[in-house]
């Protein structure tokens, strides 16, 4: 079963707010000068910010903010966030792989930005919604 797609807009302001809240002040997430110096196309989102948005999507599908019992991803491609009002967009979809008798549901999650996958092996286990 495929779950409804959820879309998240990401702007530079979001990255600044996430840097402050998470304590991850790596300048590749706020300085084009430093991002390009290390070979990136420009400022990129924190991988953990992308994972947090996917976590929101998973919690929304599960229907509870405390339903996630296992959650793992591999970061495969950076999410480049241009310095514009629109920023960029991350699309998150998932398929239900298994519903266990113990009341757990396993999801395979896909996250894309501009049509390219930004995560692989993204999997979550949630308590099955009642």
């Amino acid at each position, binding site marked *: 079963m495929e779950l409804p797609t959820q879309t*998240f807009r990401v702007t530079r302001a*979001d990255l600044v*707010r*996430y840097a*402050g*809240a*998470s*304590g*991850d002040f790596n300048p590749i997430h706020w300085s084009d000068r430093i991002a390009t110096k290390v070979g990136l196309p420009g400022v990129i989102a924190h*991988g*953990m*910010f992308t*994972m*947090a*948005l996917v*976590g*929101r999507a*998973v*919690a929304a599908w599960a229907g*509870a*903010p*405390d339903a*996630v*019992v*296992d*959650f*793992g*991803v*591999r*970061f495969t491609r950076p999410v480049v966030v241009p310095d514009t009002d629109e920023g960029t967009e991350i699309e998150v979809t998932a398929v239900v792989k298994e519903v266990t008798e113990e009341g757990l549901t396993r999801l395979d999650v896909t996250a894309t930005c501009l049509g390219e996958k930004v995560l692989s*092996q993204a999997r979550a286990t949630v308590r099955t919604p009642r």
Partner: protein
Amino acid sequence: MSLDPSFVGRTYPPTAPYQVGREKIREFATAIGATDPAHHDPAAARALGHSDVVAPPTFPVIVTMAASRQIIEDPALGVDYSRVVHGDQRFAYTRPVVAGDELICVNTIEEVTTRGGHGFLTTRTDVRTAAGEQVVAVWSKIVVRGEA
């Protein structure tokens, strides 16, 4: 970047307790756009059976990232942080983190490999309360990029 495989299995001393604050959970939830009342309102969290506001699933990275400096900055291991890229991340929960938790991290190096000139380092961090209750196990794999 070649990392010393003899570090596999090494466990570091427990970190100093991290006090999970209600306002920190609210700030983090706001930063990721998580608007569920259980992240913000203690009464809503209590209605779900928690003692205080509930942290979003990736919140523990605040605690484990700070704790991982033990490994990243271990001079004997010699990781060049300017060459580090985040590879994998996983959280396996015993229960959600809630405000009021006092969390201690125990870091263990699970895997050290070198492939194609890059170093790969997987750490497991057991996040427990000061009283010893397991809360979440966190795995993080970093890639230390080789000199091009």
